[in-house]
């Protein structure tokens, strides 16, 4: 097991180095750099000014040197300077991480706490009206775009309550704090909940047909014990995989929700930085997302072993 973990960690490191190269090269391949963009709408641009700015930002150096400079800084905890705000990239990125993490965490919590129980209920009541109703709900969750749902929620809250739950860094009341995080989390978590519910349902249906479930029932175990103790415990593995993938997706994939609810998280910041070709911000944020994805995958693999004692990682 120890050797397996070491090998996985080494593989993670290689993956991250590979990703860093891909991020760096792809960013430079995209046409247009920050200097072009900064000067874009300006009239009578002096080419010497442009050259000076390229030099100031280090963009006149060969790409390999620029890469080594970035990686060297990264290893020392120096993420460079944002070209746009002229502040340290770390200072720009750090305050945004908890906001997105809170939103993603709440969305995942919503997704798991709604998706798993409803998936179980749907499977246990297969073929009933309740099952059909829940399947319609889950299909809706997968079909409704989150930006549309978000806008609908905003419109409804303006129309019904005369206010709207957009971000406020200093919420005055507990209800405001609840609204600014939980409402967007529900809007984005609805899709995740629907996915979790479908996976839980199909996994449960497969498990409920197993012989050991029949045996448990024959031995007189209660329905609740059969469904939650015997069946769900074994049906949960694919659900964990999906939740792991969703967790990784949510860190970078909240762009639409962050835009609609005006939340200053990392996803919206990443898109803005990309628009400005603010390389230090973009490459560090994408690296952060890559780290989250790799770590989430690793955690899911470890959870398998913890949940199912039959799984043992060996050399």
């Amino acid at each position, binding site marked *: 097991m120890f050797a397996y973990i070491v090998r996985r960690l080494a593989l993670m490191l290689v993956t991250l180095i590979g990703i860093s190269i891909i991020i760096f090269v792809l960013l430079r391949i995209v046409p247009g750099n920050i200097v072009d963009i900064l*000067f874009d709408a300006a009239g009578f641009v002096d080419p010497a000014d442009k050259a000076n700015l390229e030099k100031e930002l280090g963009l006149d150096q060969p790409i390999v040197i620029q890469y080594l400079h970035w990686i060297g800084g990264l290893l020392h905890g120096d993420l460079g300077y944002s070209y746009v705000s002229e502040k340290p990239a770390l200072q720009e990125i750090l305050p945004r991480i908890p906001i997105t993490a809170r939103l993603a965490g709440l969305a995942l919590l919503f997704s798991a706490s709604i998706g798993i129980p409803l998936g179980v209920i749907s499977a246990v009541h297969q073929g009933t009206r309740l099952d059909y109703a829940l399947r319609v709900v889950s299909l809706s969750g997968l079909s409704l775009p989150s930006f549309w749902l978000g806008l609908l929620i905003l419109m409804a809250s303006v129309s019904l309550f005369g206010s709207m739950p*957009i971000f406020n860094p200093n919420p005055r009341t507990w209800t405001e704090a609840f609204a600014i995080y939980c409402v967007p989390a529900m809007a984005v978590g609805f899709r995740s909940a629907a996915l979790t519910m479908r996976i839980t349902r199909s996994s449960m249906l497969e498990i409920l047909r197993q012989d050991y479930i029949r045996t448990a029932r024959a031995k007189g175990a209660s329905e609740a014990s059969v469904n939650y103790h015997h069946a769900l415990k074994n049906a949960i593995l694919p659900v964990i995989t999906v939740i792991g993938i969703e967790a990784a997706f949510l860190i970078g994939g909240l762009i639409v929700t962050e835009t609609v609810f005006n939340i200053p998280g990392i996803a919206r910041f990443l898109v803005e930085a990309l628009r400005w070709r603010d390389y230090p911000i973009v490459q560090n944020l994408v690296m952060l997302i890559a780290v989250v994805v790799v770590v989430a995958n690793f955690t899911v693999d470890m959870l398998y072993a913890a949940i199912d004692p039959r799984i043992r990682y060996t050399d």
Partner: protein
Amino acid sequence: MRSVRTLAAAALSMLAAYDVSLAGEPKQGGILRIYHRDSPGSASIHEGATYSINVPFMPVFNNLVIFNQSIAQNSVDTIVPDLAESWAWSSDHKTLTFKLRQGVKWHDGKPFTSADVKCTFDMLMGKSQQKFRKNPRKSWYDEVADVTTSGDFEASFNLKRPQPALLSLLASGYTPVYPCHVSPADMRTKPVGTGPFKFVEFKANESIKLTRNPDYFKKGLPHLDGIEFNIITNRSTAILGFVSGKFDMTFPTEVSIPLLKDVKSQAPNAVCVVEPNNVSTNIIVNSSSPPFDNIDIRRALALALDRKAFISILFEGQGDIGGTMLPAPGGLWAMPKEMLESIPGYGPDINANREQARKLMQKAGYGSDKHLQVKVSTRNIPIYRDPAIILIDQIKSIYIDAELDVVDTAQWFPKVARKDYSLGLNLTGNAVDDPDQSFYENYSCGSERNYTNYCNKEIEKLFDEQSVETDVNKRKKLVWEIDKKLQEDVARPIIFHARTGTCWQPYVKGVTVMVNSSYNGYRYEDVWMDK
């Protein structure tokens, strides 16, 4: 002449004051909450080329002179003193001298002097040790030989030749005075001014906060305790925020006509105005390469335009037809209607114009059996894309089959500056309603923003001729001739001048939306809230 102008300005100020008294005595206090359409790249107005910077940061600064903030139409007659107490032209109109206010302090407590004026303009002219990272309006000061000071409270602009427009350029929201003792880099992140509001913080993609300057040299101003700009890039969210009362005001001149209807239906008490913003939508034609190096094809293109159709489809009729200069009544330099309609393509009979266009196309070798295939390049945002689609539809009638080529914003200006396009649809904004600003920038040979490569030495002489002319009426006539010639030469066919909306809650008072520029009216020192 000067006294007539002063009298007119005084009369207009009295009218404005009368308006204020009708609205009641201004109340002190309150934070004005405005949503901002995007996150400005920096806080330095001099390094910016978008009003996304002017709107939040103009209240931090003062100019030497400024367009009266309570009069909607900017003109030389509405220019009032700001950091300058008074100004005077020399008899040969080659020296403009400003007497400066005494006792003015920068927000960091240091005194304002003529050295700051010299510093600012030396930097703008590229003559100082300290440099702006970019200096988009350097050409505004091409005719200024140098700026000299006499003591701490007098500064003079010495010109190479008379340029009456200089005063208007100095009155623009784009021309604040910067402090000598703060570096350009610091001005991009923590601006220091003398203005009615002090800078508090700028969180990119989040908010910009300003607070009242208690030591402002204009006693009793500003009325507000502060201004907060919440950056909301999603238009629907922003408008919903305004409707729900989260914001006191929309981002100026950013509400489209269809959205304005939504606002009025959901917030019927909101005060909304629709005004021209001096941004023209125009066609850029690369005249240096085929097929548009052929003047007949360029003329045919201009003749094919049905400008009214553009305005009725995109703005429900709320737009203006004109030449390069903003049409009247908002614009000061527009050609008279009869003159405009005498230009090919501006006549009311669209069918006759297009028949003429088809003949020109046939002369160039195209017809119903041989269409010209082109791409219409434009920036990938609705205000560019939507008119480009209408353009493609209209030029089908003259044997031109065009395909839409949408270009990422980051690539758009570099692409047109490289002249890497054949036919494009572009928007041109004017910070000051003055021919000097528009003609040299967009039509002079070699100018970087002369995207069409249009170059006519004869017309350049006329640019200079109008620029030195001190008699406004004579200058106007020259400007009309130039504008007419530019349209006839199909230098950059103007399709329309847009109008856009601004809304505010009924308790917000003292807001004036400028009608001939969207860059100059954001000092907010007279704004107050009746609540």
